């Protein structure tokens, strides 16, 4: 087994554990490369099937290419897709002009909470990774959330020997992180190996590409000539610039991201 085999095997084990142990699970699909990889791993874990709903929280300002990608593959792969949206906040005019953190909380966090409440999901599978950001580095693979989806970061349960916390106290839920131990480079190498389709925005046009995808107003492209998966891998192998450098909401204050996550952000 090489390093990608080992990561894949761990992820399959986690996904099957979530499906076997938690009553109602759903996959959170942001259409970005990481959740696309998780979706692929789900199909691998269940031999071509997707045995639980795939949830997309639509903020109403996602890039059009992402929505087109979602609709194409939801049909092609026959995905049990659920699209959630915080319509009340959108109608009330929520947007980054009201503060980027407030906007993320309303459109993403609250949007997710509403879908979870409506369908009664006990487990939410999310494609976050330790190397993205410091608080994610400290995450658990099975990470409990309270009644308000809050993350008690100062008192996380022990997690060792692959014995995961799969029992949910009443009202709470569990976030499941199958690619927590992967890096950005691992994700692209796996995309290359498995030939996993990705949104075109990741590939350079006119010397710019997106390294991380989000909402149109808060996500900026980076200077890059990398126009193929191979070129992205080449670029990342040498880079010393952090992945979320194009994501504006992280930099509102030193602990902006931690506070977002503690309140239920992915």
């Amino acid at each position, binding site marked *: 087994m090489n390093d990608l085999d080992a990561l894949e*095997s761990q992820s399959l084990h986690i996904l099957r554990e979530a499906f076997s142990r938690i009553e109602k699970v759903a996959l959170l699909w942001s259409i970005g490369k990481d959740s696309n990889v998780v979706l692929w791993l789900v199909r691998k874990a269940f031999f071509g099937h997707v045995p639980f709903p795939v949830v997309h929280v639509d903020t109403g300002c996602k890039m059009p290419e992402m929505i087109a990608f979602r609709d194409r593959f939801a049909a092609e792969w026959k995905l049990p897709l659920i699209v959630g949206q915080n319509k009340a906040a959108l109608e009330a005019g929520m947007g980054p002009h009201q503060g980027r953190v407030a906007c993320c909380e309303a459109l993403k966090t609250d949007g997710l909470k509403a879908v979870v409440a409506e369908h009664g999901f006990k487990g939410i599978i999310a494609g976050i990774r330790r190397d993205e950001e410091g608080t994610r580095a400290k995450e658990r693979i099975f990470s409990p959330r309270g009644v308000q989806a809050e993350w008690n970061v100062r008192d996380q349960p022990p997690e060792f020997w692959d014995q995961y916390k799969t029992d949910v106290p009443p009202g709470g839920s569990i976030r499941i992180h199958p690619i927590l131990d992967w890096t950005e480079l691992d994700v692209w190498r796996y995309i290359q190996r498995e030939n996993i389709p990705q949104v075109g925005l990741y590939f350079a046009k006119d010397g710019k590409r997106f390294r991380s995808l989000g909402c149109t107003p808060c996500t900026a492209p980076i200077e890059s000539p990398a126009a193929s998966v191979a070129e992205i891998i080449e670029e990342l192998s040498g880079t010393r610039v952090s992945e979320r450098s194009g994501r504006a909401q992280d930099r509102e204050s030193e602990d902006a991201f931690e506070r977002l996550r503690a309140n239920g952000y992915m």
Partner: protein
Amino acid sequence: MTQSQLRIVIVGHVDHGKSTLVGRLLHETGSLPDGRVETIRAASEKRGVAFEWAFLLDALQAERDQGITIDSTRIRLKTPGRETVVIDAPGHKEFLKNMITGAAAADAAVLVVDAVEGVREQTRRHGYLLHLLGMTQVVVAVNKMDAVGWSQARFDEVSAEVAGFLKGIGLTATHVVPLSAYVGANLTARADQMPWNDGPALVEALASFHPQPGLADMPLRFPVQDVLKLDERRIVVGRIESGRLRVGDELVFWPSGKAARVATIEGWNQAAPAIGAAAGQSVGITLDDHIFVERGHVASHGLASPCECTALRANLFWLSREPLTVGSRWRLRLATAEVWAEVAAIEKVVDVEDLSAANATQVERNAVAEVLLRLRGTIAADTFADNPRLGRFVLVDGHDVAGGGIVTATDLETGRQGVPKSTNLFPVGHRAPLEARWALNGHRGGVIWLTGLSASGKSTIAMEAEHQLLRKGRQVYVLDGDNIRQGLNADLGFSPDDRAENIRRVGEVAHLFAQAGIIVITAFISPYRADRDRVRAIRPGNFHEVYIKADVEECARRDPKGLYARALRGEIPEFTGVSAPYEEPETAEMVIETLGRSVEHSVAALLDYIDRSFVLKAGEAAGVGG
């Protein structure tokens, strides 16, 4: 890039500089994104506090505010040759569960000790827990050498103190490295400040460590995670914890003891279906028979099965606020099995401060104890020493993991060893090339031909070698003289012609076994050189002649079957060494001199030869897909 990662946990007493060490290591090895140090420096300035390397790791606001690590973190380190994951664990006693979370995931550990303070309470506790978690690769980092004036005398003092403590718990440090994380001395390169130190820098010391040892070479343990019903198929999914399995293998599921063969190894988006899989792989298989299988069952091969037990003796560390008391009940989870467990006895509680053991009626949070657990059902388990993956468990309190333990004994009064249901472990597919069999087995096949006088030790050595090779998951079989003569060669006597025919038949059979990919060990006197050479000639490259050497006087003295005594009395005609010749080998691949040597010594020498000669060469391992 494709090598497996090495995961290293950094442990030690609070404030001895673990996070500083990791932060500085990230910087020195160029593993940080550009601008990260500057960002943290600016943020520190804004908050009016002095910059610390630990701020790079302590990502939580509460951690930066209090200057301590609360939860463990994992970061990739760019080290030459392979990728290293560094796990920074908290040293504060309050966060022991987080330290365990980090340490249990590591292949190796760095125990950080402050050169000024020396060994403190959490140094001992962490050291003890490393031992309990089965960690054998440990470096001691004597940190803050700048604060003791780079003094060799102080370093020697602290080293002796640490070594003495570690010895007491049965742990040996591979290296003891003096360094200063704050200054960045002796981390990636040897430090000018300590010319007296001729040991390696920390990164050099870490390079000598290896990822998890060969679980694939141990007996098969395949805990069932789930049985998926998809497209009319019933797919048994799970991760192979140790050993290997392949299509056609007969698997026995414990604790039911039901057996069935592997019909297929399922896959998706694969070029070709896999025919074999090994430890670490998450697989889905279908069986050729509709036996009842469910989550919690463990599949093994017929031989080398786990223990079916209803009671366990264990070393346990306790993390819950609620103490563990005699008579209390918890959910026990071992691999994928889950069962109620009652604490039948607390045999002793270990004081990690002075390692003394005391009798107690309860185990408090963060304490370590030896306990006896009685189970409300039967599960398949091993001792930790036999199989680390099936020899460890957690106890769950309500929704949370409350403690963890390693199994020290399974063969208690209520436990019984599983009974092999079949010894037919050698499926044959004639279209498969020999190399494919080798790749599946993880080793080459061939004939180890032991020759020597009666009572020289051939059978004893062969049987013990077979036992040990089987335990390592090798495909091995012994053809023994006495056994073959009772069956296949029952029509033959001991005349030179009959002896020649005896050896010819055995030689053919041995080579057939070798062609099936098996390591076959034969134990026959085979006294005539010409007979042995004929066997060699069948397939010279697969024939290894091993002379088990002991002179006639010594063999006659041992004489376990009383044959020499009878031969000397003339009761057995043509007895080799007495009334028939023995021709010593001239071209043996190996000579094992048994006179004055123990059986263990001879077996070890033979196993060493087999390991070297039967290892797959570059390229031969390919084809073990999953």
